[in-house]
């Protein structure tokens, strides 16, 4: 029996060249390439999950502006395993973004982008850009209200590009407004164009890994010298190298198996992101937000000064992209160990802190008005009749509560006003309300007689109940004096 199998295998191997095909997996690699080297395999694994789950989703998804939403509802709520499959695709995308980020950080910190692996790094940076592109276009294929308005936001951003902005915006919209052409274009990009390019780049990336070998872990005091590096690397492999499979690859198998299990568990127990309302542009109560991996950019655009916003919107991604692409050109030799490259550690830490902080801000978006703010209760207002009560009501009805916080109620776009009477006198309050201020509209023209007095009367009651310090006492005295 075994003899028959061997004969069949030899025949197939001879005709198909299977041994040659899998021989790269047996290449010799540095034996010290251990757990830090698993992120590339994990990224590839996530990509394979995306391809498989994406193909499966395409069996039911109709890329038509009129039907995509209904097919998504069918996939999520009716089709067997549909909810799980959508979850798999979503968490697979999240895992891919996380793993490619970790892979990039590890490669950077280990100095593995230096000679002779400059182009391996460059192709990896291109793959990072394509991955983010897949993430964004994938969010749009979740063709609900958020997706439709996100297309508009993307078009507006592209519109800032000098000279060709309008044209770029029309490419994104598929015309001059959202319509039948919008979704099918993003579908073609997400399902054919970007994956096709990614397959080519992944092939190139892996070919370069094979060509130049897996980089050995860096050793402090042993800089890369292009003149001698290749000979030293060959010597290292002869001396202590091991076959990638199975001696080194078992760690990749462990991590990728764990990753698959984690993605499947998240898909099963947490499920895919909920669908918003239908993609009807006449529904104006929409609040578009990017998926988590682009939320930091949403935060960045919200926090930078308005006068430079357009430049940052266009220039920042280009600048970051160019910096990453040209890192190995500027710095292709010398020390690889992170301990001898403190600027490398600082760069990675800074990037992580910056993205993390911006993500946090984007998640909470304190700059957005709170449209869900409910009228203040009588307990918070502190009155059931009279001008204070009326002012409390107006504070909600006039939209003040959308932006200002009072005892935990309202928005955070403007300053909290819970104890505003400790800081501002009656006259100050009147001036602010009538004339507006930094980032606040002037309410003077829109207030009816008596409404200003009621609002001010309400705000004058917003003071600390038990002053604890001299400063607070002074402030209270000041307000009191003004009122007299």
């Amino acid at each position, binding site marked *: 029996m075994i003899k028959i199998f061997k004969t069949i295998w030899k025949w197939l191997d001879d005709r198909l060249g299977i041994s040659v095909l899998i021989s790269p997996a047996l290449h010799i690699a540095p034996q010290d390439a251990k757990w830090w080297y698993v992120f590339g395999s994990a990224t590839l694994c996530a990509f394979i999950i995306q391809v498989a789950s994406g193909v499966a989703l395409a069996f039911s998804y109709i890329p038509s502006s009129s*039907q995509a939403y209904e097919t998504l509802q069918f996939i999520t709520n009716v089709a067997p395993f549909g909810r799980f499959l959508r979850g798999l695709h979503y968490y697979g995308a999240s895992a891919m973004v996380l793993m490619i980020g970790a892979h990039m950080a590890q490669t950077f910190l280990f100095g593995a982008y230096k000679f002779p692996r400059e182009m391996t790094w460059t192709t990896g940076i291109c793959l990072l850009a394509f991955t983010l592109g897949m993430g964004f276009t994938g969010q749009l294929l979740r063709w609900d209200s958020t997706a439709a308005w996100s297309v508009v936001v993307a078009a507006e951003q592209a519109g800032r590009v000098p000279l060709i902005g309008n044209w770029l915006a029309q490419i994104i919209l*598929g015309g001059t*407004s959202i319509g039948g052409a919008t979704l099918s274009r993003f579908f073609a990009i997400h399902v054919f164009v970007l994956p096709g390019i990614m397959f080519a780049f992944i092939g190139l990336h892996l070919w370069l890994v094979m060509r130049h070998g897996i980089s050995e872990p860096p050793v402090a005091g042993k800089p890369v010298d292009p003149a001698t590096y290749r000979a030293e690397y060959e010597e290292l492999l002869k001396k202590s190298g091991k076959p990638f499979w199975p001696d080194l690859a078992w760690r990749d198998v462990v991590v990728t198996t764990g990753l698959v299990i984690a993605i499947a568990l998240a898909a099963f127990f947490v499920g895919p992101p909920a669908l918003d309302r239908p*993609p009807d*542009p*006449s529904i104006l109560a929409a609040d578009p937000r990017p998926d988590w991996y682009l939320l930091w950019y949403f935060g960045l655009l919200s926090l930078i000064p308005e006068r430079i916003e357009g430049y940052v919107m266009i220039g920042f991604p280009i600048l970051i992209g160019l910096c990453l692409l040209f890192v190995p050109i500027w710095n292709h030799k010398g020390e690889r160990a992170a301990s001898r490259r403190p600027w490398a550690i600082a760069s990675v830490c800074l990037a992580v802190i910056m993205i993390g902080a911006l993500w946090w801000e984007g998640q909470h978006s304190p700059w957005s008005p709170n449209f869900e703010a409910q009228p203040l209760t009588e307990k918070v207002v502190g009155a059931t009749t009279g001008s204070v009560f009326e002012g409390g009501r107006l504070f909600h009805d006039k939209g003040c509560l959308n932006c200002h916080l009072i005892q935990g109620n309202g928005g955070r776009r403007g300053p909290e006003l819970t104890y505003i009477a400790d800081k501002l006198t009656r006259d100050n309050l009147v001036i602010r309300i009538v004339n507006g201020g930094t980032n606040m509209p002037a*309410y003077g023209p829109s207030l009816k007689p008596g409404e200003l007095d009621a609002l001010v009367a309400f705000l004058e009651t917003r003071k600390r109940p038990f002053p604890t310090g001299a400063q607070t006492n002074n402030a209270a005295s000041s307000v009191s004096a003004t009122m007299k």
Partner: protein
Amino acid sequence: MVGFIVAPFFRKPPENWVTIGKSNEFQIGKTVAVTVTDPSPLPWAGVTAKSGVWLRRVSEDSFIAFSANCTHLGCPVRWLEGADLFMCPCHGGVYYRDGKVAAGPPPLPLFRYDVRVADGEVQMKQAIVPISTTL
């Protein structure tokens, strides 16, 4: 092949007048959301053939049709009746009732569509997404 893909981008936007309601349906001084439907959408456009527009009746024969897109990044602004303001949910842009910027990051006033009253009907030019090409 390339021509097939890029041809739609060079198509001139249609200049049709679209009826959005009888003029007596709108109160003077009020701003309301109206739905405008593309009169010649692609057959598979579905609900995306619709657009939302804020329509304000200024006087007996004067209307303003505001684009619902914030001039900052295009998010849909909401009309707060009590506050007499438009507010954007994304980055907090605020506009007065005449569309002028009141606060926040918008670089321009709300875009206005051409609007007219003909035979007792309020009509406006087809709604496109206005792109704020400012740096």
